[in-house]
């Protein structure tokens, strides 16, 4: 390494890999990963979130998992917590839906209403 530019480049790249280890407030995407969630296909959903967040280099987003919240029939359930905003709950998620949530909600700030629990109509 021969320049400060190179040093800064390494710094940026390394920091992106480490930003989990701070107390800063971030957007949290929480995937329900209890037995019900996993059997309904939560793992590919979680992986899709991770891939998308990483691809877009979103530094203020954390992908995490949680247990069963009691609505097993609507799994995979994903909750998005944004600091200072109300929680958004997405239901019956798939990897494709996950990618759209990242693009539309996390990046552009528009909740994908049609996937939320509020739009769910019981048959």
């Amino acid at each position, binding site marked *: *390494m021969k320049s400060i530019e190179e040093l800064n480049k*390494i710094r940026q790249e390394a920091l*992106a*890999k480490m930003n989990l280890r701070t107390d800063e407030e971030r957007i949290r995407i929480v995937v329900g990963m209890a037995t019900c969630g996993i059997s309904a296909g939560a793992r590919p959903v979680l992986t899709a979130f991770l891939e998308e967040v990483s691809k877009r280099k979103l530094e203020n987003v954390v992908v*995490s*998992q949680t247990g069963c919240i009691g609505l097993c029939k609507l799994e995979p359930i994903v909750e998005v917590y944004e600091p200072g905003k109300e929680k958004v709950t997405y239901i019956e998620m798939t990897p494709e839906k996950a990618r759209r949530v990242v693009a539309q909600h996390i990046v552009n700030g528009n909740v994908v209403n049609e996937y939320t629990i509020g739009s769910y109509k019981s048959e």
Partner: protein
Amino acid sequence: MNLYRAHVLVCGGTGCHSSNSDKIKEKMEDRIKEKGLENEVKVVMTGCFGLCESGPNVVVYPEGVFYSHVKLSDVDEIVDEHLLKGRVVKRLLFKEAVEENIIKSVNEVDFYKKQTRVALRNCGIIDPENIEEYIAYDGYQALARALTEMTRDEVIQLVKDSGLRGRGGAGFPTGLKWDFTKKASGDKKYVVCNADEGDPGAFMDRSILEGDPHSVLEAMTIAGYAVGSDQGYIYIRAEYPIAVKRLQIAINQAREYGLLGENILNSGFNFDIELRLGAGAFVCGEETALIESIEGKRGMPRNKPPFPANEGLWGKPTLINNVETYANIPVIFQRGVDWFRSIGTEKSPGTKVFALGGKIENTGLVEIPMGTTLRDIIYGIGGGIPKGKDFKAVQTGGPSGGCIPKEYLDTPVDYESLTKLGSIMGSGGMIVMDEDNCMVDIARFFLDFTVDESCGKCTACRIGTRRMLEILEKITSGKGEPGDIEKLEELANNIKDSALCGLGQTAPNPVVSTLKYFRDEYEAHVYEKRCPSGHCRRLVTFVIREDLCKGCGLCKRNCPNDAITGEVREAHVIDPEKCIKCGTCIEKCPFGAIEKR
């Protein structure tokens, strides 16, 4: 780039390492792979977290969940429950991390909340064997700035303005030392890091070197630029194998990245660092003895002056600073003089790391702003004295320091106020004593250490400290005579005035300070042949109180020397001739009927 959703930080400091944290890390990685999580969860071995008492420690981010006393057999549960299913394993949490069923993150626990981590800023957070993690947390930015934007004088002025003082104990202004070395004339100059940490129970420097080795390398390189040196040495004791290994890895990585070696960052400045291992002699922490040792000679102090800044290593101007002093340098450059001076006190800015030990709940490493009171350190962060015992004194500064009694618990910790109390800041050992500790015996313990470690060059230290130890041994074994205490005082004053180096000059401090605050204990030993704390066995007799003894016979059955006699349901008696004062009977007696007198 692979983005992980969780980072598991396993403490790899010497404390946790000795309780198998390396195996815990391996097993954790295996289990994570088994569960198919290896692309989601990353395991990192870091430096010391500071709470060594509760080791091995593991922290899981992003939540900051703090597990303590983790055993190999717990690993599967953490992976299966927490990492796979997102359920925190409550039974393994650090004791204070659960309150009314709310789980606190690691930084909300009292032990950490009350600290200000400057020198330890990266310890327990980054992987010390990965230079990129150091760079991520602003590593080598200070060096880059110094080399490209600042003149040598500006660098020295900044260190001077910060008010940073030597963290090795004496508190000499660091900027001044740099200035002396820069101004000294010589074609070749050296920068040395004193990592010969020798106080019993002190491990501040070890933790910094194990947890954040690059901070020291970066600071030494800045110092090299400022004073005009191209060669640095780190003198570290061979008893610190993990620190030695990580330092060597760090040096190799810095060379690989072009942050050590020739033409650093295209500035035309060359600097390299080598390790020199010490054999563990306490006196080699004294700077001139350390220089002798690097030169390959027997570690013995030289006369001062000339000071190392003018004639040091191989007769050349040499800058010597302590590990913790260096660790403060990069962050002062990054965050500025005003920020640094806003921490601590007017005369002692910044923080100090202390190794808390002895009779205290949270044994470990703490970093506090200068000016924090002893009470805050011991009770606020340290968690107080175990088993509800009474605090008696705190020893600071190791064998060169002194004991501070209860009356002064509200003293703010800085260089001046500790010296005023007859102790010193020292390198940061802090040993807490409770009512069961005998102060005469503590003084004897430290003298025993200095007698062992005296290099023998000057008479005052070689013979003087031995005579003092002999008198202390006489007193603690119940053979003290009138006049002994006065003789101790006279010897102490003479040694202080005439010893060659800091080791000898400060060796009597433990005796002088205990005599100052606990003279009554010395007098009880000498004139009444009694040890008030019941610690000195030869001065104690074990007695069974007739009124409390129920004659159950437990003591009699458990006495290893058959010193107890008595019939069932009648009061028992200890034969003082046979009693070896082991204390077994006291432990066994269900009625508290046995006393030390």
